């Protein structure tokens, strides 16, 4: 079975990975200064989970970010 390998999907996956990476960096920076911030920690955990799911989807379809 082959995948579509089309640019629109590739672009969406890569853009969303960048969005997540930027958000994770922002939350981590905030948590260094405010380690007790539960809400920021919740968002960071969710973003990590989303990134894991996204990377799995990219690996599955052979669209790793080089």
């Amino acid at each position: 079975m082959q995948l579509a390998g089309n640019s629109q999907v590739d672009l969406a996956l890569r853009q969303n990975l960048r969005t997540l990476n930027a958000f994770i960096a922002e939350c981590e920076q905030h948590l260094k200064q405010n380690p007790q911030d539960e809400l920021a920690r919740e968002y960071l955990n969710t973003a990590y989970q989303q990134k894991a799911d996204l990377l799995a989807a990219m690996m599955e379809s052979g669209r790793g970010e080089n």
Partner: protein
Amino acid sequence: MHRTIKHRQSFSVWSFGLLLFAASTAIAASPEHQERHFSVKGHPVVVLQNIVNGRIEVKSSKNPEVVVSSTSIADKVAIDIEQVGDRIDISASSLSSSPLPHEVEANFQLTVPEQTELQLKTQTGLIYVEQVTGDMKLESVAGDVHLKEVSGYIIVKTTGGSLVCTLCSGKLEFTSISGGAQVLQPSLTNVNLMTTSGNILYDGDFIRTGIYTMRSGKGLVEVRFSGNDSFDLNARTNLGVVDNQAAAFLKPDTHASRHSAARYAHSLFGTVGQGLAKVELSSYSGTIRILKRN
């Protein structure tokens, strides 16, 4: 003179050849339409995995059958359909490494009984479901999901696609990275919306005893409620702002003993009516807006 004629003849042959090539390409690349009917007895389950691009449209009818209509280019996309009892499995996959998106596209139009369970997945292209009752899981990478008059336990997962849910009832879960969600005129008893950077709009009533959770990392979370609603509100944001445009309708939260508002830079706790439903809104750095509909 002779040379000119020869040149013209050669030009004509080339033109004819080009026309023939264009025509044959057009014929080879023209989409093929298929329609298949599957009789069902009870409430069917329809599973559609569109691994290529394309739109999926689902509508209901009173007939005890599932009708699958598809359009794709035959030698570029393989469509497999299998019926096992009341379950219909449909998959579309690419036979081609063509970089042209339209060549690896399969568009589906399904007609199902009103009570049908759905599991639909596509890469790009709209997923549209109208007047279907049943649990559904809808997944898309870059395509939007539009639902109208659907009911059941609805799970929508996108990477960048947005959700518009109009007149939905039952339970709704939405997760996305950059997609937004609009929930309009709902009758939902349980709502859980989460996006990292998209916006969320909830415009409708909160059903008593319902639980509504809406979270956006960086986007706007906007709730428009009616004067008859009854809910406890908990809105909090780290770096964003809470824009309370309904201060006249929000009383201090009478049920609360647990709030530690000081932990959040901006937070709001309050009660509308008797506080029968529970509404939790949060954003990391976006705005939370609360307003009453006119």
